């Protein structure tokens, strides 16, 4: 056992040294000398900065869950920023955990939560700085088990070479079983790592990439994916928690001393989303919708608010308005929180009068901005993506907002959606103009003095496990042209236009629907200096294109190619419950601009009902 001692001059010279020292309120410190009670050391790794990683609810939930075990100490580790990583390399300091300053390589488990594809190179940086061989195949008996979980692990294939095992589904459900297995087979792990992985692969929801062989057609598409070990399932099925009221939730949590991106308490209302927007991966992989009860949420909120000292509580879910007892919940929360000077933030609200009244009530202490996500500029395209918002909804909501004193709103759209034409792009500008007209028609006495609208366009990236997994991404030229068009059309004093960069979305599209042939590409890009790709100031598309070319791969194969209906996807052996046939029927309906009702209105028998949980029960 060793500990890392970072010299003062290093911490003096890097930006935000508080990122690297730990010691926050609520961080867990355990006594290693106490009778060998702690048998499992777990490093929870987030492959981005401290401020982003500490804003992640999965980290808080799993940290709490693992540290409640007497035999386990879970510590944290984040990607050091460029300046710190450089200093550590110069001085030969290994990457260490924030609790005990233990080098990463001395842990039993090094577990990454993967939230977005553009953090992949940071995983390699962290393993490398931690002194752990990058490739699973190169790891020896005394190396940690390097594991991963989180939304992008549903298609982990591009990163398959780097992980020993991957958790498919909700970690709260799988991790305890994995740790129990590890504890019971400790000697096996050091004697025969492969044999331990064989045992682990028998746990439902555990995927060991090395145990599955992928063969390809000459055109680069997948021919077959088969287990190469006896006794393993052909498909790995995700695990979920059926009843969220019966699983632990951190009632205290770590309170960072330095400012983080989402610096507030998160109260998770439910998992899953009943809406079924066709571009949305989260809406499919987290099915079925499972709510927590209002009583439990109120109890949890009050306990967390007292224990952390935070003065802001944010409701968290994919679509707040779909919580079935939102009015009762928010009334009860406000009644407790307002006298304590704690504010409530309400993201992901639907466009209706109830939402605005709610925001009015919630903003008694602090007034927050309005954001709406119509996603597309015309009704036709909104029907294609199954986004159930009409122009009337938006105009009615904006009218109420102006009367309520809001100066405007931020509107989110996507460019490059399947079937999009320039008419749809111009529809975004039309909508914005109608909002401006609406404002101008209101009497001066009843509207705010200035109009401030923001229009923001992200670029559509087709994701696995969505109805659009077959779709082509628009070409960079098409996307640039559409952005240019909007820049011209949205020139107005009262409208601010923000857009995303095409290269970043292109790389995201390559990695999101990528296969195992991208493993060497990611490694090569990292070796050529790719770091923090999600950060505009560090992202260099040139490196990636070179790495792809060196591997003989064509970016267009992954991005602008529409898949045939019978193509075997690189992620075909992962079973999220939602069936391929449902996704395909949704893709076909999209082409016809036909909408599908949301879960609460009519069950579409997507396959998630097979989990027998949440709102699927009783249908």
């Amino acid at each position: 056992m060793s500990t890392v001692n970072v010299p003062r001059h290093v911490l003096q010279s890097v930006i935000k040294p508080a990122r690297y020292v730990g010691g926050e309120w609520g961080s867990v410190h355990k006594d290693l000398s106490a009778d060998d009670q702690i048998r499992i050391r777990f490093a929870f790794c987030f492959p981005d900065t401290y401020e982003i990683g500490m804003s992640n609810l999965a980290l808080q939930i799993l940290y709490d869950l693992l540290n409640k075990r007497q035999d386990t100490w879970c510590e944290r580790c984040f990607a050091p920023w460029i300046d710190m990583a450089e200093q550590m390399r110069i001085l030969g300091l290994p990457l260490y955990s924030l609790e005990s300053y233990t080098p990463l390589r001395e842990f039993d488990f090094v577990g990454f939560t993967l939230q977005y594809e553009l953090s992949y190179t940071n995983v390699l940086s962290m393993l490398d700085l931690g002194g752990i061989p990058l490739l699973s195949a190169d790891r020896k008996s005394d190396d940690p088990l390097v594991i991963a979980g989180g939304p992008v692990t549903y298609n982990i294939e591009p990163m398959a070479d780097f992980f020993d095992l991957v958790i498919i589904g909700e970690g709260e459900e799988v991790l305890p079983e994995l740790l129990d297995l590890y504890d019971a087979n400790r000697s096996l792990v050091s004697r025969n790592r492969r044999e331990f992985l064989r045992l682990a692969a028998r746990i439902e929801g555990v995927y060991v990439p090395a145990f599955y062989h992928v063969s390809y057609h000459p055109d680069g598409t997948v021919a077959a994916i088969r287990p190469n070990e006896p006794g393993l399932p052909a498909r790995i099925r995700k695990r979920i928690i059926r009843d969220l009221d019966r699983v632990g939730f951190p009632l205290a949590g770590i309170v960072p001393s330095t400012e983080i991106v989402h610096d507030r308490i998160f109260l998770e209302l439910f998992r899953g989303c009943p809406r079924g927007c066709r571009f949305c991966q989260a809406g499919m992989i987290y099915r079925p919708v499972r709510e927590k009860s209002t009583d439990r949420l109120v109890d949890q909120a009050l306990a967390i608010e007292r224990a952390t000292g935070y003065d802001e509580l944010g409701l968290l879910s994919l679509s707040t308005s779909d919580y079935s007892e939102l009015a009762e919940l928010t009334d009860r929360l406000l009644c407790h929180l307002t006298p304590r000077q704690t504010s409530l933030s309400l993201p992901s609200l639907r466009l209706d009068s109830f939402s605005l009244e709610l925001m009015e009530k919630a903003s008694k202490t602090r007034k927050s901005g309005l954001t709406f996500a119509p996603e597309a500029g015309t009704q036709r395209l909104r029907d294609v993506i199954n986004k159930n918002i009409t122009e009337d909804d938006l105009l009615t909501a904006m009218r109420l907002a102006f009367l309520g004193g809001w100066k405007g709103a931020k509107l989110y759209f996507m460019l490059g959606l399947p079937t999009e034409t320039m008419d749809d792009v111009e529809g975004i500008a039309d909508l914005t103009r109608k909002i401006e007209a609406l404002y101008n028609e209101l009497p001066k006495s009843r509207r705010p003095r200035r109009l401030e609208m923001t229009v923001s366009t992200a670029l559509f990236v087709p994701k696995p496990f969505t109805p659009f997994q077959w779709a082509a991404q628009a070409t960079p030229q098409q996307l640039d042209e559409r952005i240019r068009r909007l820049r011209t059309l949205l020139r107005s004093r009262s409208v601010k236009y923000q857009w995303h960069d095409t290269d970043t979305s292109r790389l995201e599209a390559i990695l999101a629907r990528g296969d195992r042939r991208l493993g060497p590409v990611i490694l090569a890009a990292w070796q050529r200096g790719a770091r923090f790709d999600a950060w505009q100031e560090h992202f260099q598309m040139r490196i990636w294109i070179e790495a792809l070319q060196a591997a003989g791969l064509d970016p267009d194969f992954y991005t602008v190619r529409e898949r045939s209906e019978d193509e075997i996807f690189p992620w075909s052996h992962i079973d999220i419950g939602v069936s391929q046939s449902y996704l395909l029927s949704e893709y076909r309906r999209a082409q016809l601009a036909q909408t599908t009702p949301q879960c609460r209105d009519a069950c579409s028998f997507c396959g998630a009902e097979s989990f027998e949980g949440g709102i699927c029960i009783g249908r």
Partner: protein
Amino acid sequence: MAGEISVSVGKNKEAEKTTVIRMRFARSGPPVWLAHLDLMRTFERSVRRAALPIAYTRGFNPRPQLTFALPLGVGLATEDDYVDLTMLEPIDPQSAVDQLNLFLPSGLTVLTGGVVSAKDPSLMSLIQAAEYLLEGQGISAAAKRIAGLPQGQPWLVEKNQKGNMVTVDIRPLLMDMYDESLDRLFIQVKAGSKSNLRPKLFLDALVRLGGLNPLAAADTAITRTKLLIADGSGGLKSPLPRSGAFRQR
């Protein structure tokens, strides 16, 4: 329900009842690396966790009413810093101190507390001087060298002032300096809103004029050991009368 929500604690009527508790605190360990805003936020949340009857500022963004004596630079430890807490009701200072200590992250400790008059000028405006302990290789020798420079020769160092590099003479800001033992140097300097010498600037002078190795300067541990206010008769005193509980130097 809406009626209940809009009810706020009748602050106006209670304004005259507020009590200001001054606390002396120390920091060491990980919190040393917090910036001043981080430290303020950490105290605010700790006060809320401790459920002390703290008053809030008015306006859109109400915050617990805490006032710090003098911002502490990133990387500096302290044994003698001060924060004033405005309480909505009278509270025994010692029990407030004990309660807050239960909820501060490790490395932050409140040492003592006392009631001060709410009518006193702000804590920050009272600060006149500070004492720092500098511990690092070669500090004593470098200090000896600059002390030996001819009287009247300015100690010029470069300082970043709102984005511009300016040259300042720090010699008039140093009030006293002595070695406690080898490479444990105490300096007493002017501090506060009128004139203030940051210890890192003093280390720059040791590098520039005293031949201190820049790396040794960057590795030097700095501890604020005293904050001082005017005693009303030309001398200096502590912002809180010292109690026996705290180590005296």
